[in-house]
């Protein structure tokens, strides 16, 4: 019997992991960066790293099934004659027709309306599907101005000036030729089938002083009726929020890097911008420093998944949250029922993010007439409404346990953090300590 040296276990690099290696091979084979949809997939400090304390001897709870816990919120009362009144502090984020199918947009409108909340257009103009089925519709005013027109501006309930989004602060929209149907092309005044790379800067203003004049124009056009939101990606939340307020915004929307996109470069999604959790306190601080907290409303989006996330965001000082990816999942995105078809596309349910290719088996991120039939707008809208209902009940459950008769009475003092990183970002103590990194002299 010959002696053999004990073998070492094959060891893969933590730096060059399987995903990284596959991406190097893909880049070498194709010569082009990877484009995909959705938001940052890397592990980030998030709401999961926060816990509520609940009631104790010094704080007493409200009865779960007897005492009221208000969920309503008014957006845009600073300047608008007709502010947006929502029953729940969860809105549907902007997603374009073009990126999404007509039935998917209709379903979002139906679900939001059933729930007493608003939905939002996107980088492709306003469709009849969503206007018709959305009681409260926010009309995005984007750099591309695709489909922008006076009639739609006046029949919107609010206007959202989009400066950036969390998935790609500093990047413009992208809609590849596969999804440019006749209808999408016509709405955007572009030839069918071309790759659309929307502008990343607005064509007729640059900087905060111009933005103030642009907001004045939008108010004058709409007779000061409609709330004007300003949406920014999670880049410099303190300064962006302060500048938006200075420019006259009624509502500031801050979208963290987990916020989704229809399509952009993977390298952009994963490496530019800040996590949602890191954006909230600086944005709230800016409002507080200006004496505008609760006067200018703050909406935060990017990775909101359940009522706990909603409650945590509100406790940190946010007025409302917005959901995009989660809303699509409620409609049926990435549903395991289509697993065989996901496999044919080289992926699996839960991981499918090639939304730009227009082959979505769930019929949501497509313009294929056959695939989009898979979305029943009524049933999908009902699922979204159910999901919003659950999130709201969950948030109320937590708020009552913390002794709050309104979700908006939740406060940072109700929270602790599980990690030093989350404690620093959220400005709440590390669990079991009174230590807030960066404060208390540390």
């Amino acid at each position, binding site marked *: 019997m010959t002696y053999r040296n004990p073998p070492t276990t094959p060891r893969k690099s933590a730096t060059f992991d399987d995903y990284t290696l596959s991406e190097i091979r893909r880049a070498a084979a194709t010569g082009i960066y990877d484009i995909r949809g959705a938001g940052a997939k890397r592990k980030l400090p998030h709401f999961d790293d926060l816990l509520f304390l609940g009631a104790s001897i010094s704080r007493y709870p409200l009865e779960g099934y007897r005492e009221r816990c208000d969920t309503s919120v008014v957006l845009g009362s600073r300047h608008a004659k007709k502010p947006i009144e929502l029953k729940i502090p969860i809105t549907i984020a902007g997603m374009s027709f073009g990126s999404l199918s007509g039935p998917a947009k209709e379903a979002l409108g139906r679900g939001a309306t059933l729930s007493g909340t608003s939905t939002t257009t996107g980088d492709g103009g306003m469709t009849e599907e969503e206007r018709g089925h959305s009681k409260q519709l926010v009309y995005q005013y984007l750099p*591309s101005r695709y489909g922008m*027109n006076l009639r739609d501006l006046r029949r919107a309930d609010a206007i959202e000036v989009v400066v950036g989004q969390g998935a790609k602060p500093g990047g413009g929209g992208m809609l590849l030729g596969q999804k440019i149907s006749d209808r999408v092309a016509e709405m955007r*005044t572009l030839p069918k089938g071309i790759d659309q790379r929307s*502008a990343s800067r607005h064509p007729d*203003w640059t900087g905060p002083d111009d933005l103030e004049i642009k907001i004045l124009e939008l108010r004058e056009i709409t*007779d000061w009726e409609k709330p004007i939101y300003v949406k920014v990606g999670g880049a410099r939340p303190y300064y962006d929020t302060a500048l938006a307020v200075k420019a006259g915004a009624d509502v500031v929307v801050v979208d963290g890097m987990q916020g989704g996109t229809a399509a952009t470069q993977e390298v952009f999604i994963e490496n530019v911008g800040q996590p949602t959790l890191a954006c909230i306190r600086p944005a709230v601080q800016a409002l507080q420093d200006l004496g505008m907290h609760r006067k200018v409303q703050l909406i935060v989006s990017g990775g909101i998944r359940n009522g706990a996330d909603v409650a945590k965001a509100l406790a940190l000082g946010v007025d409302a949250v917005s959901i995009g990816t989660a809303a699509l999942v409620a409609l049926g995105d990435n549903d395991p029922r289509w697993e065989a078809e996901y496999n044919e596309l080289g992926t699996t349910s839960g991981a499918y993010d090639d939304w730009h290719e227009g082959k979505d088996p769930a019929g949501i991120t497509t313009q294929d007439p056959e695939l989009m039939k898979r979305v029943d707008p009524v049933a999908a809208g009902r699922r979204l409404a159910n999901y919003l209902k659950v999130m709201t009940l969950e948030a109320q459950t937590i708020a009552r346990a913390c002794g709050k008769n309104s979700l908006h009475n939740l406060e940072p003092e109700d929270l602790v953090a599980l990690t030093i990183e989350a404690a620093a970002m959220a400005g709440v103590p590390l669990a079991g300590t009174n230590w807030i990194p960066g404060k208390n002299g540390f």
Partner: protein
Amino acid sequence: MPATSKAMRDSHARVFDLDVLSLRELNQALHNLAPGSNETAWEVLNPKGSHSVAVGVDQPVSIDVRGSVGYYCGGMNSGSTITVHGSAGPGVGENMMSGSIVIKGDASQYAGATGKGGLLVIEGNASSRCGISMKGIDIVVHGNIGHMSAFMAQSGNLVVLGDAGDALGDSIYEARLFVRGKVDSLGADCIAKELRPEHLELLQGLLDRAGVTGVKPSEFKRYGSARTLYNFNIDNADAY
């Protein structure tokens, strides 16, 4: 001629003196116009560089602005005829839907940005980014235009009797550019194109509508998209 004497002469015009009334009152009065209103002539005095003068007007009235305006004059105009007897600040006629705007003086940056229809005439010069992202508007500039004009221009016609600055028509889509003078440089994917009979006819129509006389369509050169960047190709990456 002093603005007031003209206003007094034209007894039918509804006169809005911005020294007396606010911008809000002016725009609200214009928006309150019902279809078929007989208040079809308006005169705005003392604009003194005000922003957002006569924005979002959606009735076919004529508005004479006596003096220079600030940003976004005539923004989103839908059917009205606006004449600025002075110069215009940035974004004049931005996202115009229809109607016409005439600037007797010069225009600043982004003139006619994203315009979807109608006619914008600038009798003086226009600055940089004239016709940026234009989506169907017709723009006629009697003088010169600045750099980066017609950037990402999607549709419509830009006619320039003078010269154009650098990077004309960068990343242009299907808009047509006609320049009579010299072009400092063309932007990515913008090329000179043949001036065919249908273009001569189109140009003549645009010149007529803009009140240009003594200029022949054959004096212009046409520029448009080479369409090489319509679908992403890694071999074109150096173009960006």
